[in-house]
């Protein structure tokens, strides 16, 4: 499946099926710091992502001046 990433914006190919939690681990993301979205909705860590799914990993952490 194609997984869209940010910072910088890019896409990577990952073979499915794969759980969202494992996808984060494989790509080096702390799952507390990102949101995995399939189509229009977030998914749980145990959700199984299949080839053909449209997946995006949205960074949750942001901010400079606070």
């Amino acid at each position, binding site marked *: 499946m194609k997984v869209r990433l*940010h*910072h910088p*914006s890019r896409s990577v190919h990952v073979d499915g099926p794969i759980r969202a939690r494992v996808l984060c681990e494989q790509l080096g993301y*702390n*799952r*507390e*710091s*990102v*949101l995995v*979205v399939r189509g*229009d*909705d*977030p*998914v*749980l*860590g*145990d959700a199984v992502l299949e080839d053909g799914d449209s997946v995006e990993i*949205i*960074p*949750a*952490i*942001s*901010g*400079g*001046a*606070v």
Partner: protein
Amino acid sequence: MSCRCGKAAVMEVRRLRAEFCRDCFLGHCTSQVRRMIAKYGMIRPGERVLVAVSGGKDSLGVWDMLLDLGYSADGVYLGLGIGRYSDRSAGFARDYAQSRGVVLREVQLREEVGFTIPKAAPKRSSPCAACGLSKRHLLNQAASVSGYDVLVTGHNLDDEASVLLGNVMAWDLQYLARQRPVLPAAPGLARKVKPLVALSEREMAAYCVLKKIRYIVDECPMAAGNKHLALKELLNAVEDRTPGSKTSFYHGYLDRLHPLLGHVVDEQHQQLHECRRCGAPTSTPTCAFCRLQSEVLQSEVLQLAAPRRAEPADRPTRPAGMEAGDPLDA
């Protein structure tokens, strides 16, 4: 996994050991905001509310929740002059305001104070230091001048916990005493409130995705290497192993330690007087923002007076992440 209502869950909040369907998750977010407003007396009935809007998930999310809760809230956007990033941020803020039919005030730094953040950045220890100082001053001014009672910011649990960690590591009692979800009104200062302090950044990202609120996902190109981003990653490493750590760290501080710092707050208030240039409250003869403004404008005058040189090395440095076509001070 199912939500407690029986529908399919789309979002988990591990610190609560809960999974939510769309509607229950949105209800959870709104109820956390309502709870913080009530607990800390953030907004009183009939007050005029101004939301500081950056075009990011937190500020657009809190604006959305306040409107859904029935508050009459306008927005204010500061144009920081950070090239295409500022242009895109403004676009998201304007689009949201238009979609809800609400007022968005805009303040462009270049027009209002004569400089932009890329110009001010070299004058302070980091770009974020110059930006934060300018935002605090100009947002307060926007609220005070236009007669708003309350200024709302989108600071969330991660923002507050990371700042708290930084202040604890430095044992800075003055900053610790000031770190509250409500900063009371004072002459020249609107009440400043942070209704998102019980919600994490991840929850705010999910809120915007589920409500289809379009926001700027890109990080500010000038924030690369920012200390608080590193502290947030550290805290999330702990949160991943022990869900609930950020909440107990920050809210435990507010409930148990902050009350012991009341004398520091009192001392700070006693030291405040009007800035001799702009009239804003300050503990020094001229406020920090006016000093920054003087330094930046003085440099501009000196640069204009200096003979121009054509060497590429003399061109201003473009912050990491800014694109080739981005003007440094557009």
